[in-house]
């Protein structure tokens, strides 16, 4: 049994002259959640398409569960579930019919549609046509569709993009449940808080290349700056912000003078966010 669920080796994909994914290599361990972070157009979706057999890489290869996706496409696809960035359900069919259709294509017998819909919070709406669903409901149904055959690898492309907080939270909880089940999750997002909360490791992709890949904690340690941020009251009564960088030789003195010379109103430590680190590494934000 291979230790790595996904191994990408020098993946390259071009749209004409544009190199969308440029010599990308990484691995994802079994049972791990890897966050693939980057702004729109960075190459996230193209990478997912190559990993799921929708597009053939122009160079390099991808091994999933030890099988080359370009050679053993159907065998690999039987083991993966994909939730797309854009809603692509049969809107003239009901939720139950959508799930049953895809379950049949995966040769799943005795699918418990009710239980699956209950998991994604759509219980009682199984007979409604999907066209009448809200965006959040459709997204949850897409996740349910990806889970219908209990895949060993789950690809989620921007699963919470534009969703209300309740729907987004429901999907995040499902991702964590899937990891508990033992599934490997490949999550593309540009929501850094979501990535920080869910992912064991994150990869920053920028202009088709991986700029950094590590655990959120390690990235923060390596690139981030810890601060103490205090609000102080001036003589006129106005509030001003003071920042003191931690982990430096002059930090103790600066803290001592803050408390002795200024009237501190609030004080708290602040860690660099993944977004800060992304900006630091790539020179641009995620939006």
């Amino acid at each position, binding site marked *: 049994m291979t230790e790595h669920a996904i191994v990408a080796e020098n993946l390259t994909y071009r749209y004409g002259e544009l190199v969308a994914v440029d010599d990308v290599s990484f691995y994802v361990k079994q049972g791990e959640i890897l966050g693939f972070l980057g702004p729109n157009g960075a190459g996230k979706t193209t990478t997912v398409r190559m990993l799921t*057999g929708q597009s053939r890489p122009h160079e390099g290869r991808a091994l999933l569960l030890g099988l080359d996706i370009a050679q053993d496409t*159907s065998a690999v696809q039987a083991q993966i579930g*994909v939730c797309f960035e854009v809603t*692509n*359900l*049969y809107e003239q069919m009901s939720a139950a019919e959508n799930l049953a259709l895809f379950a049949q294509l995966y040769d799943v017998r005795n699918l418990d549609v009710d239980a699956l819909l209950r998991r994604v919070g759509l219980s009682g709406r199984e007979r409604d046509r999907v066209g009448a669903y809200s965006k959040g409901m459709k997204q949850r149904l897409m996740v349910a569709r990806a889970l219908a055959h209990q895949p060993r690898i789950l690809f989620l492309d921007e699963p919470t993009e534009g969703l209300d907080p309740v729907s987004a939270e429901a999907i995040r909880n499902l991702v964590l449940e899937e990891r508990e089940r033992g599934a490997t999750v490949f999550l593309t997002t540009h929501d850094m808080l979501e990535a920080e909360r869910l992912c064991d490791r994150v990869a920053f992709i920028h202009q088709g290349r991986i700029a950094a890949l590590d655990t959120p904690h390690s990235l923060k340690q390596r690139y981030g700056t810890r601060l103490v941020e205090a609000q102080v009251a001036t003589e006129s009564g106005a509030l001003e912000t003071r920042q003191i960088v931690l982990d430096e030789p002059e930090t103790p003195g600066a803290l001592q003078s803050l408390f002795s010379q200024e009237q501190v109103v609030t004080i708290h430590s602040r860690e660099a966010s993944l977004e800060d680190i992304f900006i630091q590494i790539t020179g641009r934000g995620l939006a």
Partner: protein
Amino acid sequence: MMRWHAVRVLMGKDLRLFFRNRFFAFITVLSLGAFIGIYFALPPTLDETLSLGVYAPGNGTEALLALLEAEEGEGEALDLRLLGSDAALREAVLEEQVLAGLVLPQHLQAALVAGERPTVGLYLRADMPPEMRDMLVGLVEGLALVLSGVPLEIEVHAETLGPDLAGDPLPMRDRMRPLFAVLILMMEVFGLSTLLSEEIVTGTLRALVTTPLRIGELFVAKGLTSVLMALSQALVVMWAMGALGQQPLIILTALLLGSILVTGIGFLLAASARDMLSVTGLATLVLLILSIPPLGVLFPGLFTGWVRLIPSHYLAVVVHQAANLGAGWAQVWQPLLILLGFNIVLVGTGVAVLRRRFA
């Protein structure tokens, strides 16, 4: 190896979606009903009687009248009506009670025998084809020759090549059978190309290809659904029109090949079109082009050889020959083979273009 289970699942889904689309369901039922209704609304026999009004004032025209009445008595092709005045004759022609009116001058026979050139008036309907006018002129001239005492000493030997329909002419509605067959098959192009185009635009096709389903299975499922839908509708229409009576196996083969033809066209349209509107526009254009050859069956001699470049020509020819003339395999194998060739090219190109579009 083809997973027929997956193909069956997809076909079931496509059929369900087709009939849930109210527009397609309505158009399907409407076109079936309309085509069958039009067929039965048209006369079941062809009226080839030539109704001729005659105004013969005064004396000296009896001999020509007798000859005309003799022509009428020989068969049912001529229906002679004597009218009392020139005005009544004109009115009869204008009101389409007769096809043409003949005014015979007084002392016609005497003038002919004397070698004079008497004038015979002929009133014609505005919509009379020129060949019918020439035939009437020829009829009068021939009779005049008989009356003048110098009948033409010529024996015409007529031989009908192919099925002899004399006495049992093909009614217009049966000539329209190939047109109905092409039209009903083409209706399916709208359905298939729209369903396929929708799958591409909405991304459901992308969802399907991330399952273990192979792209070949997908095309087979789409193709079989389309052929099944087109063939079943065409068979219903042809059966209702009585076209399966003489050569059912040949008609079935022709319609099957026609169904495959429209499936290939549907693939091409789906790959070219971006949405429902462009599908409708392109399909209408194709429908117009494919409808040209059956019009040649309806009006023989209307088109020249270029019509053979349109694949529906061979479908129309086979349906016409087998359903209307009772032609056997020996007469229709060549057009069927050419139709098969068109199918291979169109389906092959359609699949290739669609695969390229999707990739």
